[in-house]
């Protein structure tokens, strides 16, 4: 009887292990950061079947570059010094998993942190003595929006705050940065309809060829076979992201790093809205995410990709509140030619902002296609996004107001974050001390 039951159980588990649905082996629900790839156990665990310890390198492989770019305030190297041995007994901050334990939904808080929210106290208990502005604060609010982050404080450090004292809520000329496009204005390489090089049986859809003829691809000399039969390969009707990456490397890299492309990055079938944890439109449930899902093949309308593409899948309250919001009204005015270029705010303006990179042709811009890069903690959005149009004190308040964000910034922030004033008070304290010394 027991043997038979054991055999049956073993058989069932073996079938689940070898089959497509391995969820039975998950020790607990995975965080929203990793759930899309939770069944590729070997990405994080030493053992491909999920056994063995989680590898520090696994965390760094995906998140290391972003941490380095963020001037990580608490890099591993700060904790390896033996003088910190006593601190490591409380929190072994040399390991990412000391603070971010996976599969523990019962203790997982914001940003996937599995420590009590007042964990900063372990090392910074005396901050009130060195900074009177912090006296009496209970360490429950260190990481409240607008004050500090553990890793990324590029928009929160004291001297940065001091540079933005007294700024108005909206700048005199609020503008998004404008792209530096690679296609030259004189269109020297421009191709015309008659020059398209697809085999005759593949180039019969007049709408497609007309779209192409009007695209930046045609203007830049990118013919049909450049994507559909690259480097003499056989014709493929639906070129994959790798083909796009031949020319659009930083964009594809960002896409594969974010929620839209992270499954493709692990060689899994593409992400679909049906697998998402955020509310999505039922009609879009089974759309597969690739470059072509937001950028229609051949037309490549970036304005559509910046708003309509998002709205066609996402159906949460922040998204639903976008149409008719102040940002959306500005976007419509810009699209209608009634307002200057860069004055509108699309979904992508905030969630996929412009970045600068340097390649063989010099300084260029690209759209950050990792939608997560500026999302959480949301102060990451301040420098690349908010501060283009808004003053820092207002932007800090707005980002610290979840209800305002849910309404897609209709109205004013409900509370005021005192970070800038606290920085001023600290500066003033130093002035008083020096005056007293003289």
């Amino acid at each position, binding site marked *: 009887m027991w043997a038979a039951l054991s055999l049956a159980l073993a058989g069932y588990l073996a079938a689940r292990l070898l089959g497509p649905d391995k969820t039975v082996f998950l020790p607990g629900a995975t965080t929203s950061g990793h759930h899309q790839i939770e069944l590729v156990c070997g990405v994080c665990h030493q053992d491909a079947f999920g056994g063995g310890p989680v590898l520090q390198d696994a965390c760094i492989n995906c998140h290391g570059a972003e941490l380095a770019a963020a001037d990580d305030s608490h890099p*591993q*190297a*700060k904790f390896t*010094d*033996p*003088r910190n041995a006593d601190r*490591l007994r409380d929190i072994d901050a040399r390991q990412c998993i000391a603070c971010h334990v996976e599969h523990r939904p019962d203790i997982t808080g914001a940003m996937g942190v599995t420590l009590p929210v007042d964990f900063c106290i372990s090392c910074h208990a005396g901050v009130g003595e060195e900074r009177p502005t912090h006296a009496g604060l209970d360490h429950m609010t260190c990481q409240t929006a607008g004050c500090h982050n553990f890793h990324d404080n590029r928009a929160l450090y004291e001297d940065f705050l001091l540079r933005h004292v007294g700024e108005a809520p909206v700048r005199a000329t609020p503008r998004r940065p404008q792209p530096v496009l690679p296609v030259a204005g004189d269109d020297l390489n421009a191709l015309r309809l008659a020059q398209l090089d697809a085999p005759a049986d593949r180039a019969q859809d007049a709408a497609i060829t007309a779209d192409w003829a009007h695209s930046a691809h045609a203007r830049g000399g990118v013919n049909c076979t450049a994507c559909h039969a690259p480097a003499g390969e056989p014709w493929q009707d639906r070129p994959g992201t790798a083909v796009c990456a031949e020319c659009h490397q930083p964009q594809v890299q960002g896409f594969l790093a974010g929620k839209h492309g992270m499954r493709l990055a692990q060689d899994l079938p593409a992400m679909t809205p049906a697998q998402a944890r955020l509310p999505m439109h039922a009609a879009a449930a089974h759309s597969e995410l690739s470059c072509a899902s937001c950028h229609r093949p051949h037309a490549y309308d970036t304005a559509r990709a910046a708003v309509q593409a998002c709205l066609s899948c996402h159906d949460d309250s922040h998204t639903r509140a976008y149409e008719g919001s102040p940002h959306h009204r500005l976007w419509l005015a810009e699209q209608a030619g009634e307002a200057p270029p860069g004055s509108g705010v699309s979904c992508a303006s905030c969630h996929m902002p412009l970045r600068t990179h340097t390649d063989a042709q010099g300084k260029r811009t690209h759209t950050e296609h990792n939608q997560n890069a500026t999302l959480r903690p949301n102060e990451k959005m301040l420098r690349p996004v908010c501060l283009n149009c808004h003053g820092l004190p207002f932007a800090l308040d707005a980002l610290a107001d979840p209800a305002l964000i849910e309404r897609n910034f209709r109205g004013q922030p409900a509370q005021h974050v005192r970070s800038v004033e606290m920085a001023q008070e600290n500066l003033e304290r*130093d002035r008083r001390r020096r005056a007293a010394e003289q």
Partner: protein
Amino acid sequence: MSLRPLARLAAVGLAAAATAACTSGSDSSSEAASGISPQMMADSLHAVMESDRTVYTRLIVNRLQNELGVIEASEHWKDDKALVLPAQMFRYGAEMVAEKNAPFSYSLQSLWAVNKQNEPKTDAEKAGLAFVAENKGQNYYTEETLGGKKYFTAVYADVAVAPACVTCHNDHKDTPRTDFKLGDVMGGVVIRIPL
């Protein structure tokens, strides 16, 4: 202690240190015939660290910022498109060494640290920092146990070698001390070698 990996490592440091003068008065550097003593190893490492940082402070920061006024040095060097501060240059080096899993570690600390995390923390650090501040020209050597491991710990005075050191620290809004003068002991370098 196992001297072989240390000796290999020290050979690199010694080669570089050979031409650099060790300004601190290192007493009895007992070199055993079989290898290099932890103290000699620490002294050699410190000679390289101190020399490199003095070169950076005098020839780069003090010359370009204080004498020629062509570029500033700033704590926020990335945002300010400025030179890295000498203390940061030292700390980034220490962090890079830590990333390489080198067998030794080092840090810059002070009884008057701008960043309170750089104040002495262990008993050896506290005693060493106080000793080098009060006994100019002398180093402090001891052994300590941290996290169950035994270390040879050496503390060397960190002296204001250029006007830039003094002005920057005296003027910083978070400095606990505003009366540093050229040549003052401003802090100390702590080097630890596992035994």
